[in-house]
């Protein structure tokens, strides 16, 4: 900028190769973009990348369940869990919980998201806000709410008993059933939001076209609605999956100690047993699990042309 103003003849210079000015401009633009990105990148680096590096380093340190951490390099904290059937069970349970919660959450959120995306009502904004309003309450509070509802003397069991349908209360808390119910409800707002934004490709005219060509309502859904909403469905599933396998509060509270997943295990290792290197190794393993799922997701979305 300053060079150009000082020398004056630069823009009209006879020897100036074509495209030089454009290149200079592109360079300036790039600098602007970088400058604008810098705060976010810096923030992310300090708050995410550095701790991550620290955690990975920690997972190779010597240490045990006594809280003593010694600088060093050992693969013991990876070898231990990977050779322990209990750990494999926990990992499998975590994965299964993520899939089940993800699928159920998508199934119950799909109609709500479809309704909100299609609605032309003047209350559409209000309804959307209502659908995501539960996010205003912390997951802890909502988990306690579910404990009250699902407990042995809770709303569900006492109602069923009152109707004479059961004599013994159903076991709905302190097990995976309770955790699943709680997580599905808690993550619904995320799933709804993800799907609403993913339903843009579907115009009602496409469904009308399909039905005018002879497709029954079920066929229209199967051949047109579902394929075109699949990207939104996959995004919602991925989001709920990732959130549920990394969440710790609900499995801990609604699981009542009977539900062991990676997140609760990491918590126990960190705060209970003070075995930080082991907890760090488990965290890295969980991270790898995320990576695998995100990779599968990306391949799938590319395949369906989203």
């Amino acid at each position: 900028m300053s060079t150009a103003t000082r020398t004056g003849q630069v823009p009209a210079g006879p020897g100036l190769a074509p495209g030089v000015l454009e290149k200079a401009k592109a360079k300036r633009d790039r600098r602007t973009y970088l400058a604008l990105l810098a705060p976010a990148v810096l923030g992310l680096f300090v708050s995410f990348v550095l701790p991550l590096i620290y955690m990975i380093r920690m997972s190779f340190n010597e240490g045990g369940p006594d809280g003593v951490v010694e600088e060093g390099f050992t693969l013991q904290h990876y070898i231990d869990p990977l050779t322990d059937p209990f750990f494999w069970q926990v990992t499998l349970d975590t994965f299964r919980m993520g899939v089940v919660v993800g699928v159920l959450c998508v199934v119950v959120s799909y109609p709500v998201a479809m309704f909100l995306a299609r609605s032309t009502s003047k209350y559409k904004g209000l309804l959307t806000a209502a659908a995501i309003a539960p996010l205003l309450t912390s997951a802890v509070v909502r988990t306690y709410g579910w404990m009250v509802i699902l407990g042995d003397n809770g709303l569900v069991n006492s109602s069923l008993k009152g109707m004479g349908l059961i004599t013994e209360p159903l076991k709905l808390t302190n097990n995976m059933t309770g955790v699943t119910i709680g997580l599905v409800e808690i993550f619904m707002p995320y799933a709804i939001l993800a799907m609403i934004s993913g339903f843009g490709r579907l115009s009602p005219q496409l469904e009308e076209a399909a039905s005018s060509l002879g497709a029954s309502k079920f066929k229209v859904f199967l051949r047109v609605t579902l394929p075109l909403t699949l990207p939104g469905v996959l995004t919602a599933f991925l989001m709920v999956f990732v959130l549920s396998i990394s969440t710790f509060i609900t499995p801990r509270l609604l699981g009542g100690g009977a539900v062991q997943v990676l997140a609760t295990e990491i918590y126990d290792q960190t705060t209970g047993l003070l075995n930080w290197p082991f907890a760090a190794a488990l965290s890295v393993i969980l991270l790898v699990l995320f990576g695998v799922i995100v990779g599968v997701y990306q391949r799938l979305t590319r395949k369906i042309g989203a």
Partner: protein
Amino acid sequence: MNTSKLSIIDLTKRYAPGLDPAVDCLSMSVQEGHLVALLGPSGCGKTTTLRMVAGLMDPTAGSIMVDGKDITQTPVHQRGMGMVFQSYALFPHMDVAQNVAFGLQMRKVGAKEQARRVTEALDLVKLGHLASRRVKELSGGQQQRIAIARALVVEPTLLLLDEPLSNLDAKLRETMRTEIRSIQQRTGATTLFVTHDQDEALDMADRIAVMNAGIIEQYGPPSEVYERPQTHFVADFIGQANFFSAAVLSDDGAATDGERSYTVDVEGFGRFGAVGASGLAGSTHEIVVRPHRLKAVLRQPAGTAIEGVIERVSYTGDSLSLGVRAGEKELLAQMPTSSSGIPQIGEKAYLSWDAADAFIIPGTAQGGTQ
């Protein structure tokens, strides 16, 4: 009398109680093999009518018959209509051939037969070479043709076109007009065509239904709708028109096609000839003269003529189009180019018409007999 393929009887659609009906007790019938245009301004109910025929919308009252059978209650997917949407509505997750095959798959047509008919349909719209393309790789005109192929491949009972040309640029629109008309004539598909473009309707249709505010103002062949408008709205909506208020003085005898010749007193301009239905003498009506029938000369002619001042001149090659101010009125007239050079703005012009070229619009009686 030919059999009618489609009959619409007293069809009414009210979107909400208390609102004016979007379609108001509409009746019409369409002959087998005809292309009928539903023509009207936006909001006149033409698309609503089409959607009710397609089964995409339930009528509030009335019935729809196809081949003599009442299909009012038949759900859309069992009606066997071929609909082409304004936005084409091609399935973005399927390629061209899959799009065209969709209706055949729904009808459980065998794979071999499917492939044969898809190829045939794509050849019909001259896009056989694009069968394996993705929809989004196609231009607007190509998408349009695929949409038509997709609708025709199922051999629909009726082909329904909702403003099919409105998303194309002007030049392509001209080409597609001819194209659609020729496809329609080759396949013999009875077609209902919604448009707001009068040129399109005049050019393509066997019959035009001019719609306004939920009713059909006039239903007939293009020439009749243009030459013999039954209401002021029709005369005004289709083509350009000069309107005059005129007292019909005397019946001067039979004209062609069962019409009568009349002498009329045009308000403010004197006596002229006009034609119209019988029994109009003694009433006051509006008459319409099309611009190319309103002849302008620069010297005062022998008979009665409207004297005016030229305000606008446009040269179109064969003739001159003039804008002439006569009293309160601004009239559109034509003058042959050969006669006496190009007239100047501000010059005087004298306008007149042949009696057969002025039509007394029946639906415009003012005041009645005196």
